[in-house]
């Protein structure tokens, strides 16, 4: 047995103090908040910690739901070939769909279910954050389960690991590293969409939920520089603290679950070592967390086994539900389109879609052009430098860039730059990080021997980039482009129609058409048609361009001899 770590009262005391301060802040601070349906937030910067706590609570809730659902769907897709054929295409389409475009519809549903109460609007906000976090988590779980070595899962079966024991000893450890990696992306994505999620427009009504995203947005729109700076500082502190206290330690902890054959003894993160000295933490984990976890795993295992037992009725129910949805969709569609002629706005859709497509393509292409040299430079920094670059990127990725769109629009027009350029620049905020992350992870994974070989062969500068670096990172680069392509369509919706300083900055494009129809004219026909057109285009291009490209590149440039 490892030596018992010394227990320490200071750790207990510190922990309890932090918790008490948080609780007090949450309770007393909340009395200062204005109700959810007031037109604007209390702008006092002293309330920022409360706004931050509110936002974090929403994100945590959304994240918890996203992880649980991702585990369930990812595992189901990996375990059952029948379920896989339904789940994967659905996830694929939903992931590549610009969720922002569906926000108004989702909000209507939630507010319809719960009524326009605080609960309904909060639920809508949590759901919206959830949609920005879920897809890559589900794909991550599925991916790591199907790439699990066959003999390992056979061994688990053979040893009799079933139900909760199989989850705790095989499934969760196997998906953990990927889950952590994708959680960081998901969490950053959650920040990115926070503003769109905390300002809820349900038809004519507009709700501003108290939170960091809505505060920042309000500060920017009203042009309060001091408030903006305070909000940004709060955001920066929050993302850095989360990195130091949560994601960094989790990444370190996840190393022990990697499937590598050789390596160092797994390390325990420092914060874990400190916390394990606290009596309170030990008591809570022994008496509450472990029993609750086991109960959850048992229930999970039982639920997972259900499709096997009740597969037929469940499948039938799913088919019935899909059929009902299809019938509903067709009747609604008929009412929207066939019952009246196409409006002039709807006729604009093809041209708008084309222009937006050009902007998205430019946004992705620019991201690639910028990322390659940056990744090259970062890869030469050495381990420590790369770690810093990665952290900076993760923090940057957490910035709700959409909040700055009004600022960008104002700045661009002030210096006489066309709004078309401004829109592409805004899209770049949604594409660059995905491409850069992937390019960098590709660059880091170039084997040292390959670089040495390049040096010996005299490949330097451009020749090295062309012959070694770019081919080596190409599979990852394409992965990044695919994700960025999805992100760009989301950014389109916000970047083509910007209200800044009470003035509207807009360009021709599908995003502008959609926004105008949603917020100004309330034309359901145009909303539905432009969403359908956008989704169709995205799915078609995924099928005929990205997927073949990825397969070809992965086949030709994979890192195996």
């Amino acid at each position, binding site marked *: 047995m*490892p030596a018992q770590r010394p227990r320490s009262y200071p750790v207990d005391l510190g922990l309890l103090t932090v918790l008490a301060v948080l609780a007090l802040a949450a309770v007393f601070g909340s009395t200062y908040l204005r109700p959810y349906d007031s037109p604007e937030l209390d702008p006092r910067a002293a309330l920022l910690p409360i706004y931050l706590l509110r936002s974090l609570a929403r994100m945590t809730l959304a994240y918890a739901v996203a992880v649980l659902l991702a585990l369930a769907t990812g595992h189901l897709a990996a375990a059952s070939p029948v379920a896989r054929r339904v789940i994967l295409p659905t996830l694929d389409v939903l992931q590549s769909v610009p969720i922002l475009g569906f926000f108004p519809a989702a909000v209507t549903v939630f507010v319809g279910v719960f009524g326009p109460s605080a609960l309904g609007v909060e639920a809508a906000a949590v759901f919206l954050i959830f949609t920005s976090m879920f897809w890559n988590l589900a794909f991550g779980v599925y991916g790591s389960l199907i790439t699990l*070595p066959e*003999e*390992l899962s*056979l*061994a*688990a*079966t*053979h*040893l*009799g*690991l*079933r139900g909760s*024991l199989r989850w705790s*000893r*095989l499934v969760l*450890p196997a998906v953990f590293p990927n889950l952590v990696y994708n959680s960081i992306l998901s969490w950053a994505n959650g920040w990115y969409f926070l503003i769109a999620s905390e300002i809820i427009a349900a038809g004519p009504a507009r709700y501003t939920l108290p939170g960091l995203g809505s505060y920042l947005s309000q500060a920017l729109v009203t042009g309060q520089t001091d408030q903006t700076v305070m909000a940004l500082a709060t955001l920066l502190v929050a993302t850095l603290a989360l990195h130091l206290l949560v994601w960094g330690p989790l990444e370190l902890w996840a190393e*022990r*679950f*990697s*499937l*590598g*054959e*050789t*390596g*160092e*003894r*797994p390390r325990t993160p420092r914060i874990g070592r400190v916390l394990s000295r606290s009596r309170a933490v030990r008591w809570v984990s022994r008496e509450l967390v472990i029993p609750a976890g086991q109960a959850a795993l048992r229930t999970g295992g039982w639920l997972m086994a259900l499709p096997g037992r009740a597969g037929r009725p469940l499948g039938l129910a799913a088919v019935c539900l899909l059929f009902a949805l299809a019938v509903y969709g067709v009747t609604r569609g008929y009412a929207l389109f066939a019952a009246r002629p196409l409006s002039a706005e709807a006729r604009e859709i093809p041209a708008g879609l084309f222009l937006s497509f050009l902007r998205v393509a430019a946004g992705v292409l620019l991201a690639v052009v910028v990322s390659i040299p940056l990744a090259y430079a970062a890869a030469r920094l050495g381990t420590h430098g790369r770690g810093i670059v990665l952290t900076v990127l993760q923090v940057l990725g957490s910035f709700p860039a959409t909040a700055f769109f009004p600022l960008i629009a104002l700045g661009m027009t002030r210096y006489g730059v066309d709004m078309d350029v401004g829109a592409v620049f805004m899209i770049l905020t949604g594409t660059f990080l995905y491409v850069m992350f992937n390019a960098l992870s590709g660059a880091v994974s170039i084997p040292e021997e390959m670089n040495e070989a390049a040096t010996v062969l005299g490949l330097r500068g451009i020749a090295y980039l062309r012959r070694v670096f770019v081919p080596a990172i190409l599979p990852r680069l394409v992965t990044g482009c695919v994700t960025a392509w999805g992100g760009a369509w989301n950014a389109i919706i916000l970047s083509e129609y910007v209200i800044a300083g009470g003035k509207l900055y807009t360009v021709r494009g599908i995003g502008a058409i959609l926004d105008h129809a949603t917020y100004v004219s309330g034309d359901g026909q145009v909303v539905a048609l432009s969403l359908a057109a956008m989704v169709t285009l995205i799915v078609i291009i995924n099928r005929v361009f990205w997927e073949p490209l990825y397969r070809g590149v992965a086949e030709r440039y994979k890192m195996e001899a």
Partner: protein
Amino acid sequence: MTQAPPALLRMEKVEYFFGGRIRVLGPVDLEVREGEFLSLVGPSGCGKSTLLRIAAGLLRPTAGSVWLGDKPLRGVNRRAAVVFQSFALFPWMTVVDNVAVGLEARGLGARERLKRAEKYIDLVGLSGYERAYPRELSRGMKQLVGVARALALEPELLCLDEPFSALDVLSARNIRDLVLDVWASPEVTTKTILLVTHSIEEAVEMSDRVLVFQANPGRVAETVDLSGLTRPRRADRPGVRETIDRMYGLLV
């Protein structure tokens, strides 16, 4: 002539189709007798590993039946334990947890699990490494953990699926000797062993009986009884070299 010992496991006309269409195996009839060391030898792709997995209840045969004594085998064979070619250790568990996890699945209490796991870790000569993680061990040591994990289940049948082919020559030698020692040791209850290998030398050195397999589809071409050869069987012992050569003739 003495009566052959009763069959621990019997397969009748077992067939296996990959993806439901491509015939990998069979039909095969086979008997694993109580207390014997039986080897399946054959070229790669002859379905011998598939057969082992069917015996362990990890794969269901497409056709035919598998009997444990006089009962048909359903689901995982709880009277068998498997040692895998790639070790199949859980990288996130220490050595002792890897050995004990199967006992946990069988409902043993924590203290009992630890005691039994330590006994078998000691038996394979890894005491002192209980708290190590697999990635800190050499391949030979990893496979020793694999053997300890299988033996800890105290199975009647030990299934070895190419257990030495991912190892260097010396480690393979060590573990082969260990398995033979364990098989002969009165301390260990496991007395029946099924070995799948592509090495004729290995099969001749270790087994009482060898089934020589042919590929496309996998089937038993020849059964060779080696119970007449004295142990230990090194290549310089009388009869061993000849047997090996004769079996090469059968395979080629």
